[in-house]
């Protein structure tokens, strides 16, 4: 086991910081009060005054520092090791992005700075909008939405307003059965009902099933291309035509854009609105390291509905304009997650068009190489030996033969120092193991991961119990996920 990366380190136990609390201990020393004391009850409304002091932990500065430093050693990040969490595009976040975002002119810019004193910042917004438009083939872009799902929500709000403006409010939205869970949530929040469309036996969205469900009550079809099985929806042109012919809009979930840059543009294959996940495709930090950013791109007909304010270029320079009467309005305070947008801007400028194309080519190549390496050990239900940016394996054959499941494989990978792939999603694949290596991994890193996958498949035949008992190289063994979900403890006792 020692040949695997990253499974042995000093692992501190660490209690809750509340458990370290000692009455009277403090990390701060305040100067003596030299003004008359004020009773909060006299200056604040009564309902805002608490009866007893908050139970804050009473700890010294080194205790605080050690507490959080120890907790930080429990983290796993893309800066530690390969992180093939499928559909999440856990690519490396270049450190130059951080340098650019932390320049004082970016980091310290007050959001109420007048336009004339924030020309550089507005220019970055204006240019990023246009670069994302160029990558995607969308006619207009807004950077306001704060995350991918927020971008979806914003896109559907615009579609809803466009339909209502033409006196044709509709009721339903079609969603393929391989969709991300955020899609139905977006639909429901917009007051539409969801209608699922099954994918066919090859894993593609079938134009015939779309045609059957597409009628005048359908506002939009939301699809992800490449889809979550890692396949390019090859009937996209036909599907777009069917949706458009009945007056509906085609929404494209940009979650998997990392497979397409410089090779195919959603706007060119009929997408009317889409979101971008800057924290996936454009290398900004992800998950706990966020926040995310989910710009939205739209076709010509929807531009008038984009959120305001919008950056505008004039002869006198850049400004933020509210002068768009048909806008759906503001969807986020100020200018969205500006620091994240700056990081994406740095990435776009660093790579340029040829670099972005290479990103997608390498992402697809890495996924196909991984598929090739593991295909004799794991059942790959779709794609006929090919995939786009991610490969979706199944535990079907392995489980039948050895009773080792996808969950066991995931835990076994943790023992070998790898973050597990996305498991049990998409639901159309039994025991799915969804691996997305991204372009940032070297050939050797992909090979090491494949070797661990293969070793686990072999071990499942000789010693399945070892895998049921995994992980064992970690600070804690296998957690009781069922009890955590059924009887969660949400408060420090």
């Amino acid at each position, binding site marked *: 086991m020692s040949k695997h990366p990253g499974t042995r380190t000093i692992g501190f136990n660490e209690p809750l910081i509340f458990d370290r609390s000692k009455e009277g201990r403090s990390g701060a020393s305040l100067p003596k009060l030299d003004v008359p004391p004020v009773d909060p009850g006299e200056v604040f409304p009564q309902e805002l005054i608490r009866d007893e002091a908050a139970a804050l932990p009473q700890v010294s500065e080194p205790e605080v520092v050690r507490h959080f430093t120890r907790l930080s050693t429990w983290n796993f990040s893309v800066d530690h090791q390969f992180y093939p969490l499928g559909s999440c595009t856990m690519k490396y976040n270049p450190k130059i992005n951080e340098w650019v975002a932390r320049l004082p002119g970016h980091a310290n810019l007050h959001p109420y700075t007048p336009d004339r004193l924030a020309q550089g910042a507005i220019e970055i917004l204006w240019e990023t909008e246009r670069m994302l438009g160029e990558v995607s083939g969308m006619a207009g872009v807004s950077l306001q939405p704060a995350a991918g799902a927020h971008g979806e929500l914003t896109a559907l709000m615009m579609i809803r307003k466009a339909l209502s403006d033409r006196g044709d409010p509709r009721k339903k939205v079609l969603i393929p059965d391989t969709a991300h869970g955020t899609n139905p949530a977006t639909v429901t929040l917009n007051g539409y009902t969801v209608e699922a469309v099954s994918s066919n036996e090859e894993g593609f969205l079938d134009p015939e099933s779309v045609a059957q469900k597409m009628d005048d009550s359908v506002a939009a079809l939301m699809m992800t291309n490449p889809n979550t099985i890692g396949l390019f929806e090859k009937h996209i042109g036909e599907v777009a035509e069917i949706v458009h012919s009945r007056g509906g809009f085609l929404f494209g979930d940009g979650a998997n854009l990392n497979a397409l840059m410089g090779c195919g543009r959603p706007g060119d294959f009929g997408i009317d609105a889409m979101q971008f996940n800057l924290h996936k495709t454009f290398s900004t930090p992800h998950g706990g390291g966020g926040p995310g950013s989910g710009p939205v791109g739209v076709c010509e007909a929807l531009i008038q509905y984009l959120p305001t304010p919008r950056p505008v270029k004039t002869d006198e320079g850049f400004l933020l304009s509210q002068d768009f009467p048909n806008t759906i309005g503001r969807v986020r305070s100020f200018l969205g997650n500006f620091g994240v947008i700056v990081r994406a801007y740095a990435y776009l400028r660093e790579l340029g068009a040829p670099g972005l194309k290479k990103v997608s080519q390498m992402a697809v190549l890495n996924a196909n190489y991984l598929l090739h390496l593991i295909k004799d050990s794991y059942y790959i239900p779709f794609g006929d030996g090919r995939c786009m940016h991610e490969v979706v394996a199944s535990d079907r054959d392995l489980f039948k033969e050895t009773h080792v499941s996808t969950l066991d494989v995931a835990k076994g990978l943790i023992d070998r120092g790898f973050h597990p792939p996305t498991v049990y999603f998409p639901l159309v694949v039994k025991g799915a193991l969804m691996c997305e290596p991204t372009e940032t991994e070297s050939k050797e890193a992909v090979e090491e991961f494949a070797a661990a996958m293969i070793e686990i498949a072999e071990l499942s035949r000789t010693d399945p119990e070892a895998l049921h008992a995994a992980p064992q190289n970690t600070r804690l063994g296998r957690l009781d996920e*069922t009890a955590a*979900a059924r009887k969660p403890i949400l408060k420090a006792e």
Partner: protein
Amino acid sequence: MNIPENLRYTKDHEWVKVDGDVATVGVSAFAVEQLGDITLVEMPEVGDEIKAGEAMGTVESVKAVSDMYAPISGTVKTVNEELDDAPEKVNEDCYGAGWMLSIQISDPAEVEALLDSAGYKDHVASIDD
């Protein structure tokens, strides 16, 4: 796999037990096996009108959240509230204590369109590989 003969089934792995004009609904043993440990069952409210084929609730397990589709149209008569605190009843006894809701049937013809146990057995066999 336990597929009781006296029940009717949907392709979405729900069972339906008809008693006069009331149908009791739950999920099949196959569904339970696929879902794994169930952690949350969300059902419609008593009195809600539901329509065959449309989403009426969700079942959440450690693996996934899945929609429950109304097997037939009608009005929700009762909901198994014990599942709120003890969703494990679905894992332990999906055809008994793990029942989910009962529906006042509005169109008896829809019941006839459901699969019988033999038809459901074939359906499971066709996807269980």
